[in-house]
């Protein structure tokens, strides 16, 4: 049965006003993980980055893996949301905000990781281009400077893309809540009224943003890939890295989105809004990305193998059948062998099925990032320079903490914001009229008796 606007409003605002015990337990657990990460980070600042397992020649490992992973996860949101908006896909309505929130949180977490990595986080502002009194400027030829600009642009665009459609929903909370909540949301909604002018400006702005954000999202992960591709390390200097990273990012992003939607559906009782059809449609996208990911992985490995360049083959064999082979084949199983049948067979493409596939993909994609980075750094050109890396408790804690932070941000988000756009759901109830209604102007002169022209509805 189709919901009325009142029901939609009630259902979608309910989680903001009532939280179950399970919700607070989840918040407490996520907070514990974040606290563990904060303590580890403070200890690391106090003792130095030596508590990590980094050593020559592996100067990047878990942290940069997490950085690439989270930036990748961020591609779920804004990119998918923007594409669905531009395509005017009607099934997007319950999905977009969940997705956009993932982007903002994942990019934020991703942006924190380099600050941890530099060891002296109080010097992180060196990245910012400013006229230093010592005439030391950022080197714009460095991919790390590109990262700074790309992430700032993406974060600004994604945050705007997330926040703008929230304004009308905050106005709805303002008009229905009381007390302090009314005051807070009254401020947040910036005095939104809901005039046709405001609606049109908002929708046009969202349209412009959608057009702008798609190329930005693609550029961000391409630039992240160039952090590696611009470096003379075996198997890194590859022209395929840009699209390979973008595909991987969208792949892991959709998987993350499906998991987030499933959790929201279960914990916030949004079964009537996040329906099986949404999981099926996203499952089809995930299937496409899984096949694309396999194609890129195969193409990358094939060209390396065919070239048979000794330094590259050292990395190639260590991942295929030596030290890193268990991880490599786990990655293939997680990203391809398990998800493809589940997502290809319609009967298996259920909510449970897509969640199982998404879980394996998230694990597989994290492993993929690790395998791109660590084996290559362990096997730089000259065998005497080979090294070995093993993560320490500090790196593992920080990684777990990043997942906890994501979980915590999402939980808090669901408490303070309707996780599904209320006004967009309502707008989905009615279809735009085929022709303008201006021709329906009453033709009786002003001041005459209008009783003969009652309003079409029961005003």
């Amino acid at each position, binding site marked *: 049965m189709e919901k009325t606007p009142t029901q939609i409003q009630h259902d979608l605002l309910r989680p903001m006003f009532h939280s179950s015990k399970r919700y607070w337990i989840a918040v407490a657990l996520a907070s514990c993980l974040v606290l563990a990460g904060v303590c580890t980070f403070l200890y690391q600042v106090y003792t130095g980055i030596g508590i990590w397992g980094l050593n020559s020649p592996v100067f990047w490992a878990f942290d940069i893996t997490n950085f690439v992973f989270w930036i990748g996860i961020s591609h779920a949101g804004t990119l998918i949301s923007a594409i669905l908006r531009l395509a005017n896909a009607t099934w997007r309505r319950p999905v977009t905000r969940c997705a956009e929130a993932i982007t903002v949180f994942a990019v934020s977490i991703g942006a924190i990781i380099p600050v941890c990595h530099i060891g002296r986080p109080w010097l992180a502002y060196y990245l910012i281009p400013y006229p230093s009194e010592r005439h030391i400027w950022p080197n714009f030829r460095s991919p790390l400077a590109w990262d700074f600009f790309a992430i700032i642009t993406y974060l600004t665009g994604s945050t705007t893309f997330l926040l703008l459609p929230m*304004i009308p929903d905050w106005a709805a909370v303002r008009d229905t809540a009381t007390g302090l909540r009314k005051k807070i949301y009254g401020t947040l909604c910036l005095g939104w009224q809901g005039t046709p002018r405001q609606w049109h400006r*908002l929708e*046009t702005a969202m349209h412009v943003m959608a057009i702008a954000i798609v190329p930005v999202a693609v550029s961000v992960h391409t630039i992240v890939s160039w952090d590696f591709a611009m470096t003379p390390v075996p198997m890194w200097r590859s022209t395929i890295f840009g699209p390979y990273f973008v595909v991987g990012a969208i792949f892991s992003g959709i998987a993350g989105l499906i998991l987030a939607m499933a959790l929201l559906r279960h914990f916030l009782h949004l079964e009537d809004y996040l329906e099986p059809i949404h999981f099926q449609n996203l499952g089809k996208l995930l299937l496409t990305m899984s096949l694309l990911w396999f194609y890129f992985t195969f193409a990358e490995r094939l060209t390396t193998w065919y070239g048979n360049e000794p330094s590259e083959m050292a990395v190639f064999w260590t991942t295929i059948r030596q030290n890193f082979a268990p991880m490599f084949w786990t990655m293939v199983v997680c990203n391809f062998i398990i998800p493809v049948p589940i997502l290809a067979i319609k009967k298996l493409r259920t909510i449970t099925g897509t969640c199982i596939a998404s879980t394996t993909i998230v694990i597989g994609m994290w492993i993929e990032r690790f395998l791109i980075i660590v084996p290559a750094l362990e096997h730089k050109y000259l065998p005497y320079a080979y090294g070995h890396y093993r993560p320490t408790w500090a790196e593992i804690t920080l990684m777990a903490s990043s997942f906890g932070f994501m979980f915590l941000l999402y939980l808090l988000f669901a408490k303070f914001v309707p996780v599904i756009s209320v006004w967009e759901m309502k707008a989905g109830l009615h279809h735009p009229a085929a022709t303008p209604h201006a021709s329906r102007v009453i033709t*009786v002169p002003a001041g005459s008796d209008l009783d003969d022209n009652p*309003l079409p509805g029961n005003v």
Partner: protein
Amino acid sequence: MRAIYTLCPDPDSAQHLVDSLRLASLDLGFTENHIVVVSGEPYEGYDFSDRYAKSYMFPLAAVGGLVGGTCGYLLTTLTQKAYPLVTGGMPITPAWTNGIIVYELTMLGAILTTLVYLFLAAPLPTFGSHLTDPEIWEGKILVGVADPPEASAARIEKMFLQAGASDLRRFPSSAAR
């Protein structure tokens, strides 16, 4: 701000009422600009909404992008010329790598311009009192006359009632009649 308004159950009736108000506006001493429509969701295909559809957001975003790109170009080239690094014969201002910064700042310029234009054109924020009603979030559409002339307020109310409005309200005291 004062207003007389009613809540229409659907966009067709809202359009009908807006048309009636427009016709009667001159006679009742207010202009079309005094007619206010407020809704909890956007409507397309209705004149009361579509007459506001035209905007300069797209061209302005493009201009913003150009400004952002120019800033990116100046930032990179002026910086590199201010403190030329030893590049071993490579260009001091490399177009390929600077292009990445220029591209990102172009997009940032477009995004920020869109945001600024939205705030100016909507307009937002507005923290004064404004005409609204909680029932708009239940799917109803508010149609009213803002700051109606005192002399013709009674006639405006009568017009609303004659047009079929059974639930006529006043702002700020929105007591139902």
